[in-house]
C-alpha cells in the first residue's frame, strides 16, 4: 500500500524564488492496485515518486510504503520497493545478468533465488538473447528492459515507475505495460507516472491528475467520467488542468 499525507516539497530557485513542487499531495494506492499519476510537465509527479523512493526528503507531510514512513525508516522502505525511471540507465560495462545478480546479492538474496528470478523475468520480457551482452552494446529498449530486470529481481512488493515507457518503441512499450499488468495480477502495488493517457486508461485501477503539486482529480476511470461528464480521459485531463 502507498500513502501520501499532505506531502510538500519546496525548492529555492535563483530565477524563480520559492517553488512549491508539491503542495499538500494526499493520495492512497491500495495493496494490489495500479495507480496512474497524470499531470503536465512540472506538476510534481517525478518529485512525488522521488520522495516515495527515498531519494528526496519531503519539506512537510509524510509518505508511507506498506505503513512504513519514508522519512523515519528509509532503509526499511528500500527493502520493499523497486524503482524504474526513464532517467536511470544500466551499467554500460556489465551484462543484464551481471547487473541483476549484483542487485540481488546487495538485497541479501540467495544465489538460487536470483537465478530463478532472472530466468522468469527475462522470459517474460524476452531478454534471453542479450542477457549476457554488455549493456553498452544494447538498444534503448533492451537497456530499459535491463533497468526493469534490475528493479524487479529482488521481488519487491511495491513498484514505482516514472514514465516507464518513455523513449521506447511501440513493441517494447507494449511489453512493459503487459508486464505491469502481470505484476498487478501477482498482487503487487504499482504507482506509475505517465504522459501517455492510453497507458493509464488500460492499466490503472485508479487515476490521479496532479497539477501544481496537488491532486486536481482522483478516482477510477468511471468515477472521473461520472464526476466530469466527459467520456474520454484526454478531455478529463484537459478540463482539470485548465481549470486548475
Amino acid at each position, binding site marked *: 500500500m502507498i500513502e501520501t499525507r499532505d506531502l510538500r516539497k519546496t525548492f529555492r530557485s535563483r530565477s524563480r524564488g520559492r517553488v512549491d513542487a508539491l503542495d499538500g499531495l494526499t493520495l492512497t494506492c491500495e495493496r494490489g492496485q495500479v495507480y496512474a499519476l497524470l499531470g503536465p510537465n512540472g506538476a510534481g509527479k517525478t518529485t512525488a515518486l522521488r520522495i516515495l523512493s527515498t531519494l528526496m526528503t519531503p519539506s512537510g507531510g509524510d509518505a508511507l510504503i506498506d505503513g512504513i514512513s519514508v522519512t523515519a525508516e528509509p532503509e526499511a522502505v528500500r527493502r520493499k520497493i523497486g524503482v524504474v525511471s526513464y532517467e536511470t540507465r544500466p551499467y554500460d560495462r*556489465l551484462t543484464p545478468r*551481471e547487473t541483476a545478480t549484483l542487485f540481488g*546479492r546487495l538485497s541479501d538474496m540467495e544465489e538460487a533465488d536470483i537465478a530463478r528470478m532472472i530466468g522468469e523475468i527475462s522470459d517474460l520480457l524476452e531478454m534471453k538473447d542479450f542477457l549476457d551482452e554488455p549493456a553498452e552494446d544494447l538498444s534503448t529498449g533492451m537497456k530499459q528492459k535491463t533497468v526493469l530486470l*534490475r528493479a524487479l529481481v529482488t521481488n519487491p512488493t511495491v513498484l514505482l515507475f516514472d514514465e516507464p515507457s518513455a523513449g521506447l518503441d511501440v513493441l517494447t512499450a507494449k511489453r512493459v505495460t503487459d508486464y505491469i499488468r502481470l505484476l498487478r495480477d501477482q498482487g503487487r502495488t504499482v504507482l506509475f507516472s505517465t504522459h501517455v493517457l492510453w497507458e493509464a486508461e488500460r492499466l490503472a485501477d485508479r487515476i490521479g491528475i496532479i497539477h501544481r503539486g496537488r491532486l486536481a482529480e482522483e478516482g477510477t476511470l468511471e468515477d472521473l467520467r461520472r464526476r466530469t461528464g466527459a467520456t474520454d480521459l484526454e478531455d478529463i485531463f484537459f478540463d482539470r488542468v485548465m481549470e486548475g
Partner: protein
Amino acid sequence: MAGVRNKAWLIFMKEIRVILRDRRMVMGIVLGGLVVFPLLMALIGSLGEDGDASVTVVLYEPDAELLRAAGTLEGASVMSRQGGGPDLPLPDGPRLSAGVGTDGYWLEASRANPVVWSVARALEEALVDGRSEVVRRRLELRGVPPSDLEPYSIRLLDTSDSRDRSAAVLAVLVPYLAIIILVSNAIRATYIAVGEKEKNTLASLLVTSVPRSSIVLGKTLAVMAVAVSASTLLVVGMVAFSALGLSIGESGLDGGYRPGVGQFALVAANLSTLSLLVAGAIMAIGTFARTQREAGYFTAPLLFLCIFLAVFSFSPRAFPLWTNAVPVLVNALAMRDAILTVPAGRETALAALGNVLVFAVLIGAAVRMYRKESILFRT
C-alpha cells in the same frame, strides 16, 4: 557491521570488474607504471651526456700551466686565443673563459648553467693542484720536506661507490615518481565516484537497502586499488631495472644498489597509507562534483599540490619536525630516508597516523554527502 563489509565488497568487486573491462584504463595503468621509470632514466642519461659534451673552454693568452689544466678537463673542448691577432669567431653554445691575470688566473663562467659551472670548478681545481705541485717541488729543492708544512692543502675525497650513487638516485626518484603515479592514477579513477551520477546509474543503487557507508567504502577501495596497482608496478619496474644492472649515461644508477626487504616494506607502507589519503580525497571530490569535468577543477590542483610536496624528496637535508604533520611531504621524506637506509620508521608511523586521520575526515564527509538528496539533485 559484517553486512556493511559484505556489501562494500560487492560494490568494490563491481567497480573492479568495470575497470578491468576498460582496456584503455588498464593499459594506462600497466604501461604508465612499468615504462615511466626506464623512460625517465633514459631521458636523464641522454640529457647528461649531451650537456657535458657541448661546453667550450676559451683560453685567452694561456701559459703552459693553464693549457695543462685545461687539458685535464673531460667532456669539454678547449679553444686558445693568442698573440692579439684577429679574433676567430666563438662557437655557439655554453662556454667559459679563462686567462692569466697580473696576480694569478681568472675564470668567467655562468652559474646559471650547472654544466658550465661544474667545468669551471674542475678547471679551478686543476689549477690549484698544479700550483700545489709547483710549491712542493720548490720546497724539495730547498731541502724542506713538504710534509713539514702540512696541512697546507685540503683534499676532498669522494667516498661513494656506485652502490651509494644508485641509492641516491633511487632515493630521489622512487618517492617522487611513486607519488605522482599514485595520485594521477587515483585521479583517473575519479569516475568511480562521479561516473554513476553522470551516467544516471546512482539512483538505482541508492534505492536499494545498501547503507550509504558501504557504497562509499566499496568505491573508495576501488579507487585505492587503481592507485596502488599503478604505483606498485612503478616500484616493480624500478626493481627490475636495478636488478638487470642497466646503466644509462651519467645517471648514477648502474645496478649496484639492491634495496632490502625492510626498505621496500617501508616504501610499500608509505604508499599504502598515502593511497588511503588520496582515495579519500578523490572520493570526497567525486561525491561533491556532478560531472567528471567539474571534478577536474579540484583534482588538477590536488595533483599540483602533491607534485610540489613530493619535490622536497630531492633535498637530502633533514627537515624541521613540523613537516611530519604535512601529508604527502612526510611520506616523500620517509620513503627517501628508507631508501637511503636512514631510519624512517618514525616518519612512516607519523605519516600513517596523519593519513588515516585525514582519510577518516574525508570519507566521513563523503558519507554525509551521500545521505543528502543533493547527491543526485540540485535543491
